[in-house]
């Protein structure tokens, strides 16, 4: 079992690095500074989520969609340490990334669940969201295609000046 766990860890570290989107720190930071969009399947009845709802979903404190009949949520996160993930953690979850990591360790130790599956590929996330009506993910607005639907947060669309994940000046 220890061997299996080790394999899992090695894999989860190696997979992002081995992915086709090679991380260039400057470029990734620039991507994270732009406007972010939370996307769902185009056929999803959900069109808007509050920041609280988003936070509950991404902290796995709620596993069903608010709208009736939408089923369980299939959420996709960005890999830990990625600038986009860090920005989302701070902005939406209002937590430092290390606190998020500690949160998930705590949950896992208590047997309350595992962290969401993460990826560093916007393309894959888009593909999954485009194929799965229950799926939800976030990514730079510039990379969003027509195959997915961009959600409003707290009733504000990405073009609203008070949009939660609007572009910020790169740090």
């Amino acid at each position: 079992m220890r061997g299996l766990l080790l394999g899992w860890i090695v894999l989860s570290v190696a997979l992002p690095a081995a992915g086709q989107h090679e991380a260039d720190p400057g470029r990734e930071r620039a991507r994270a500074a732009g406007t972010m969009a939370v996307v769902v399947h185009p056929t999803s009845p959900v069109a808007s989520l509050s920041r609280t709802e988003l936070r509950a979903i991404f902290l796995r404190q709620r596993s069903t969609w608010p709208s009736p009949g939408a089923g369980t949520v299939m959420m996709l996160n960005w890999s830990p340490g990625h600038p986009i993930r860090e920005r989302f953690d701070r902005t939406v979850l209002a937590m430092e990334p290390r606190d998020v990591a500690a949160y998930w360790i705590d949950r896992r130790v208590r047997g309350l669940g595992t962290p969401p599956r993460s990826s560093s590929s916007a393309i894959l996330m888009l593909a999954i969201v485009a194929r799965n009506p229950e799926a939800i993910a976030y990514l730079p607005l510039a990379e969003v295609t027509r195959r997915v639907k961009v959600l409003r947060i707290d009733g504000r669309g990405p073009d609203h000046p008070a949009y939660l994940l609007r572009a910020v000046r790169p740090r």
Partner: protein
Amino acid sequence: MTLRSKLIIFQVAVILVLAGVIAAISHDYFQRVHPRQLEGLATKAELCVRMLRGTADISLAAGDRAQLHRDLQLCSPTASRAEDDLRFIAIYDEAGQLLASRGRAPRAPPQMAPSRPGLVPADVGFRAGAAVTLEGKTLGSVWVEYGADRIAAGRRQLVLFAVLGLAFALLSAVVSVLFSFHLVRPLRRMIAFVHRVARGDLEARLETRAADELAVLVADLNWMTEELARSREQAIQSEKLAAFGQLAAGVAHEINNPSQFILTNLGHLRGQIARFAEQVGTMEGCAKRGETILLLQEMREIIDESALGFSRIINIVDNLRSFSHAGDRERVRFPLRDAVDPALRIARNEIRQRGQLVVSVPEELEVVGSPAQLSQVFLNLFVNAAQALGEASSRNVVEVRATDAGDAIEIAVSDTGSGIPPEHLGRIFDPFFSTKGREKGTGLGLTISRQIVADHGGELAVRSGVGEGTTFTVRLPRAPADLPAATLPDPPREQALARRARLLLVDDEPLILRSLQRVLGRTHEVVAVSSGTEALALIDPRAPFDLILCDLLMPAMSGMELYQRACAIDPTVDARFVFMSGNAFTEESSEFAAAMKGRILNKPFDAATVEQLLSVRLDAAA
């Protein structure tokens, strides 16, 4: 325990040890190695499935086939290598459709519980499968199968090696047992042969066609048997010779006593006849005077011929005496020529009638021993050489060549005659072996010669080949410088003794006493007694004898005893004792004779010898 059973036991032990080792290795393999190999394979399959399930979820959810292929490659990086046991790795969607695979994956997901890896039927590998889920939603399944072909191959190899090893050990055991038969059979033949030889069959021989160590052993055994036969033959020969020597000594003793009085009487008779003839010559007017003189003449011739015949008998007995080791043991240093020349004088004529004679004996060469005995040896060799030459021819040569060979002196007598055939060469020294025929030889010549040369510390060797002639080589030790040189014997005194002497004769043979008394009694006062006891009674210092002539061996009291007891009565008689000997053949008498050197008269002797002794004795007394 026989060699063969030892070998079989050894072979069985080897097989058992080998079988034990093979069993231990197999046991370890099947108990430990093989299960771990299978377990390892199962673990590998399970790990691979879990890895794939962990990575393929996103690709499956995204429906990205290219990404699925990359996931497959990541989870089976070595699938293309020969040593990888991966049979297939495959990803199916929820509907059971094959999305991506490596290897020969089935088109539909296998129908088995996909939780744990399981043995694929027919024990050829492990298959593991798992459902792929993302956030609780089942997206499809992944399957992996690893083949146990390499493990099975290793297992088959081990079994093969074990079987081959046992078979080889068994084969080698069979071969070595067969070889042992091959080895033991000649050994048993040798044992049987040795037993035969031990039972006395020295004519037995082993045969072999092989050319190995056993053949060498066989050859050596044969050689040893031949040597044994030869040395036994030699032992028999020397036994024969020793027995013959004893017989000869006994015969010589028996013959010498009568010879003594025959010789004395013949000499006396001859003298009497001469005196009678003288008297008849002076008789005037005797009617039959002329007739009587003729008769006396004839009688004298008869006596002469008898004496000649008798001298031959004495000669033969003398020869026989050489075997008894009781001949005179005088050892003097003398020039070799003194032994060679007398022999040459006798044999020269016989050689010259047939061929040339070449003699090369340096004057300065000296040897030790008896000149008379060695002369006998040389005469023998010269006569043999002459007889070997056959018909007269200018190419015939007899060569006598003496050389100084350092520590020894070698005298080679060679002839250009017919040579000795090899089958005779081994027997020429045997007593009574002769090819010459009755009238030419007794067959004792070379036997006696070899005995004499051996007594002198030398050796007599022969080299001969048919048509090449023969060479006899006498090898004698060189004379040590401290030995006395031979003294020339005094010239015999012809004149009669000046005075009448007093003699005591002691001999148990009355005929000897009578004959000697008859001869000596004419000129001397002779007292004759037939026993030591009588003689001892006559020993009186007041009436001494000038000479006491005493037989050495007598019944009751021997000459030696008489001598000792007489000396006890009158010490002056010591110098006056002279002994007569038929043949001193007891050990004691031999020693005594050696001590009384020069005072022994060998029977038969003539009256003149006694006269000579008397004159020497009387001169010394005067």
